[in-house]
């Protein structure tokens, strides 16, 4: 397995920034206000080395939107926000024109959509730029504690690599941070690196 170099990570950060821009555009169409999303850093970590600090998982509960995708490489993508932040974002997005924003079921559904927009934007940017096609499952939303999340990330021995994208999201003056985590097998990581090499080769 060839571990991704700094150059690969820079290329990924660039790709995901384009994805983040697309996601911001879609979100601002929905909320009718400016939305900014940036991806300040990308890391690839061995899942054994992952801990609460790498994912800035402090105490509390987290909202996790996940999608399984497949193509030249397979992965599970999970978008993590603290539950409190997630609910604030969603209630901001929903505005207050209707009383359903208080209803839990709809918050969850809205959170699923928010995650779906960000995940799809990142996946499609990656597919467009690296020239491949990805298929994806529908998003799934769960609320879990930091321990439960770490346990799940670590127990998955088929996918020993974890790509972590730190995400900054600003909607209507509310600023929040989250993490987008990709769980990758070593074959998948190798394939991803090969595709980045091809892309870098084509532009150099």
């Amino acid at each position: 397995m060839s571990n991704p170099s700094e150059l690969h990570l820079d290329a990924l950060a660039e790709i995901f920034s384009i994805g983040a821009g697309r996601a911001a555009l879609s979100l601002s169409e929905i909320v009718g206000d400016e939305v900014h999303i940036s991806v300040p850093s990308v890391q690839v970590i061995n899942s054994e080395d992952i801990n609460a600090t790498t994912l800035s998982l402090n105490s509390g509960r987290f909202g996790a939107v996940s999608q399984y995708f497949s193509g030249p490489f397979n992965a599970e993508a999970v978008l993590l926000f603290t539950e409190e932040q997630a609910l604030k974002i969603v209630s901001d997005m929903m505005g207050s024109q209707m009383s359903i924003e208080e209803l839990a079921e709809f918050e969850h559904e809205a959170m699923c959509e928010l995650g779906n927009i960000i995940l799809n934007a990142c996946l499609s940017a990656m597919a467009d730029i690296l020239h491949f096609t990805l298929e994806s499952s529908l998003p799934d939303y769960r609320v879990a504690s930091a321990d439960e999340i770490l346990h799940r990330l670590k127990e998955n021995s088929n996918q020993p690599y974890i790509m972590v994208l730190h995400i900054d999201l600003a909607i209507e003056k509310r600023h929040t941070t989250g993490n987008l985590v990709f769980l990758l097998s070593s074959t998948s990581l190798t394939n991803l690196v090969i595709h980045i090499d091809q892309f870098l080769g084509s532009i150099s």
Partner: protein
Amino acid sequence: MSTVSATPFDMEDIFNSLNLGVCVVDADSKVLLWNNWIAKHSDIKKTDALNRQFETVFSEPVSPAFLTALKSTLTHRLPVVLSTALHRTPLPLYNASEANQQPTRMYQSITITPIQSQLNESCCLIQVTDSSTSIKREKILRSHSEILKKEATTDSLTNICNRRFFDAHYEIAIADAKRQKHSLSIFMVDIDFFKSYNDYYGHIAGDNAIKQVASALKSQLSRATDIVARYGGEEFVLVMPHLPQKVAEQFAEKLRSAVFNMAMPHINSSPFHRITISVGLCTGIPENDDNLLNKADAALYQAKQKGRNRYICLPLCETGEYLEQ
């Protein structure tokens, strides 16, 4: 059991029997499948929808977010969800309503998934579910839970707050007063000679007296921050923030006179032969282990000792001294 190699049903029948909207569009967003559910709720027949561009099928506009999502699924081949919370009613679909009323626009949850046709063309499956029923269901559950919550904190005899509510409220009120360094006043109220009232007039009359006193005390409150609760049998407690001591004392006197002026006969209560109350008041800015409730209780005890139908105010910081009406 042998495995079924082909479905013994006509897929068309299944789509048409589904209790959700199913529609398939091709890469040019031309409608290829339009099930009965969507025909019914859009009032557009299948024959009028097939082979037309999705957005031109409806006489009303389709929401821009829906069109963006559809385009994105057709381009990127990734599934998209449109939640009710963020979109309400993206498609002009309606629910039939009572006679003589306008049909209501349906709240929808939409899923758009990329699929491949048998000719290997890229298509999109659009599924629409009606969220109106879940919204209704959740609202009903919420209102039930609010009723239960209210019942759990209300005293069933007097309809004022119960002891459970008081205990929780008192703790929060003390913490707030300590943090913000503002004063808090606790009034302990007890009906005088209540046992002999019960003995003489009976328990039903006793219950009624408790109700009357509770309502008299409650009617004295006008601020949202103030509460009156039934503390136990014939004992009540009031919690009021932000009162200067003088105002708190005037208020204690107001409570006493409100009950006195009801003039409810109580033959065994000398010298007025009517229902009266004693009030113990403690007011101040709580610090550390200060216990306003104990002080107010001690003040009530003194009011009883001093002859009832009166209030006693014990300041929080000093001990032994009391201010009498």
